[in-house]
């Protein structure tokens, strides 16, 4: 395990470089299409362009939190309790929180331009804020003192409970009367009422944000591996030093 640090000079691989390059290309297209090529909306005008960031970031945050729950369940269920699952869960949650923050910020700006308010305690906004706070809490749990196994067990339980909030957030606009509009693409009728280029740009944004998510998670979980290895090396070195002291005495 200690050789990992010696042979690793960076967290990138050929695969991450390809993913990173693809992410740059797709996001460049989203920027050009979202800001220049797509038309203004008949009601919202230019402010509709926030959608190309707001909606993909919300979906990717959901995806990240679902991956966190699946990886956490895998850690709990697997006999070997591979720490790779735990690191993936943690990395995915960190990136998910970042995307959730982007969702809240862009949503707030969009709300100001359309509703006339940065924030209202309506069902969708409230449940989204609650989801964000829950996963900030998850990240705090991961930083509680204890062994890596204790960290993995505690955070896995929290992750599997927290993921249950996602259906509540998504269906909040159906369950209750909300100021936030209902789903356009993932609506129960399956009838998508959106201009073709707007829809294509939205899906491009989802693809681009997914590539960014994968790139970030791969790098982050490798960074976490290096931190764990460094901590373990420090412990091994301390034990060896005490043994030497014991033998001298």
């Amino acid at each position, binding site marked *: 395990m200690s050789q990992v640090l010696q042979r690793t000079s960076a967290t990138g691989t050929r695969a991450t470089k390809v993913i990173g390059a693809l992410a740059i290309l797709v996001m460049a297209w989203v920027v050009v299409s979202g800001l220049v090529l797509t*038309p*203004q*909306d*008949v*009601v*919202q*005008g230019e*402010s*509709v362009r926030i*959608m190309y960031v707001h909606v993909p970031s919300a979906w990717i945050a959901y995806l990240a939190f679902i991956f966190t729950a699946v990886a956490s369940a895998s850690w709990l269920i697997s006999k070997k309790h591979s720490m790779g699952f735990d690191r993936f869960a943690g990395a995915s949650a960190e990136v998910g929180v970042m995307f959730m923050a982007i969702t809240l910020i862009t949503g707030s700006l969009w709300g100001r*331009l*359309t*509703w*006339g*308010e940065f924030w*209202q*305690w*309506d*069902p969708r*906004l*409230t*449940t989204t*804020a*609650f989801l964000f*706070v*829950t996963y*900030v*809490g998850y990240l*705090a*749990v991961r*930083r*509680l*003192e204890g062994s890596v196994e204790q960290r993995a067990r505690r955070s896995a339980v929290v992750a599997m409970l927290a993921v249950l909030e996602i259906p509540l957030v998504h269906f909040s606009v159906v369950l*209750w*009367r*909300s*100021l936030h*509009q*209902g*789903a*356009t693409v993932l*609506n129960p009728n399956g009838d998508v*009422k*959106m*201009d073709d280029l*707007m829809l294509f740009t939205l899906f491009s944004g989802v693809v681009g944000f997914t590539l960014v998510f994968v790139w970030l998670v791969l790098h982050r979980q490798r960074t976490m591996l290096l931190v764990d290895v460094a901590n373990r090396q420090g412990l091994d070195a301390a034990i060896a030093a005490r043994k030497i*002291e014991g033998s*001298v*005495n």
Partner: protein
Amino acid sequence: MDLSPRASEPSRKPRKWLPIVLLSLVGLGGIVIVTQFLTSAIDYYCNVDEIGVRSGCEESTRLRVQGTVEQGSLQKTGGKTSFVMTFNDKSINVVYAGDPGGVFQECISVVAHGRMIDGTFESNRIEVKHSNEYAEKNADRLDSSGSAACSQVQG
């Protein structure tokens, strides 16, 4: 070279307080959000046809009322905006002290905050509730007025 054993250190490590404080703050934040949610968020508004009919939509209380701004009813005079708000064939007159601004216009769904006073809904906050439909803005059609403009807003 000093080869004497190190002085024994206390076995208990100092507790890391930062995660505990952070976790407490997160818990507190969650409680505040849930409290706000329960008191304010469930069923954000009453529809126009529910005023005085549905529980929680009594005329004597401050309300959030949802409806559509009726075509041809919008007037802006003396710093006030007045319009007729309709839902399910029921209408109320709304007076707002100021200009709602933003994308507020006729034929659009809005949520008005205020009170019913002598049969008129006096509002001090208007929120535009846009639909989940997105269509290209057509300059030619926007320049038109009357039914054409309204049909474009409604998709």
